[in-house]
């Protein structure tokens, strides 16, 4: 890797890391996601700085070039991240489903209580608030 290319890559990596850091810093991000993105930024920065290490690892693993190794790492990261997000989304969906059911049941109990007490006017139910 030429000095010029290394410098351009390093600058790009630093800009990417700075922007990513600002985004995750200004939002409430779960520590795991925070750590994952910090690790990825460090990986991006390490490419121009530690190119000799990636060359050595590529030779060790029998790959044609360090570029292939870097692409493999990036793809592996994306796949693991997607798998994690998938599991996370499904769990959230299940929790939302439970909340929808519980909310509907509680709301029906409140409606029954209001009818028993003969209070009026009835407060708007959740459907009216969302439509």
């Amino acid at each position: 890797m030429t000095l010029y290319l290394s410098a351009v890559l390093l600058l790009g990596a630093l800009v990417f890391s700075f922007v990513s850091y600002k985004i995750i810093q200004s939002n409430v991000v779960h520590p795991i996601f925070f750590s994952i993105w910090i690790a990825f930024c460090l990986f991006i920065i390490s490419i121009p700085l530690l190119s000799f290490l990636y060359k050595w690892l590529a030779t060790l693993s029998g790959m044609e070039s360090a570029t292939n190794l870097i692409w493999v790492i990036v793809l592996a990261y994306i796949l693991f991240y997607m798998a994690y997000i998938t599991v996370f989304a499904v769990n959230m969906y299940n929790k939302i489903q439970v909340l929808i059911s519980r909310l509907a049941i509680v709301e029906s109990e409140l409606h029954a209580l209001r009818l028993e007490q003969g209070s009026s006017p009835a407060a708007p139910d959740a459907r009216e608030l969302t439509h």
Partner: protein
Amino acid sequence: MKKLAAVIAYNEEESIGAVIDELREKAPDFDIVVIDNASTDMTVEVCRSKGVRCISHAVNTGSSFGTVQTYLQYGAAKNYDVVCQLDADGQHDPSYLAALAAPVLSGQAGLVIGSRFIEKVGFQSSLLRRVCITLYSFLLTKLLDQKISDFTSGFKAYGKDLVQSLARNYRREFYDNAQILALVHAAKFRILEVPVQMRPRLHGTSEFSATRSVIFMLKASLSVFCYLIRRTC
């Protein structure tokens, strides 16, 4: 014995009133609750005008399986001895509720399904849907080591222990009836079928068009495949 008839409804303002009246006439010993999947018509208002408890979702949960979660949660919370599911389109005759509930209450089974394909009388659904159901029943029979002739039937009765178990463990990835049956089977509850006669819808059209029936079967097959993988690994 506390008995619950849970009526699943989505935009059934034209038929829900008749269903409630028929339930009161033919199954007076059942408490009635209507699970409304965020209808946009007057379904909820019709239910409330009849003095029936209506549990209405704030947002539509897609297919009817979100409503299953709701009535299971309700049945578990209120400690019902049997929870029966009916549709709000008038296809299910409430006079069969006693036959559905009896094996559950006597402890013979944890889940009783009202099957229209045992005696093959009454409304039998469209040809394509019947073909899909037959193919899928074959697959399910292999999975459960038990013949299930009408796994898509929405006419069911759940026992108390099963209701409590499903209310704790129900998951959205249990995409369809087949997965629920597999879950029931895995939890060592006995599944029984009783013959029922179903009727055509009172009003409107089924959500299951020809294309949707095929897609449903493909997705249901996939969910059974996933269940088999989980069970094996």
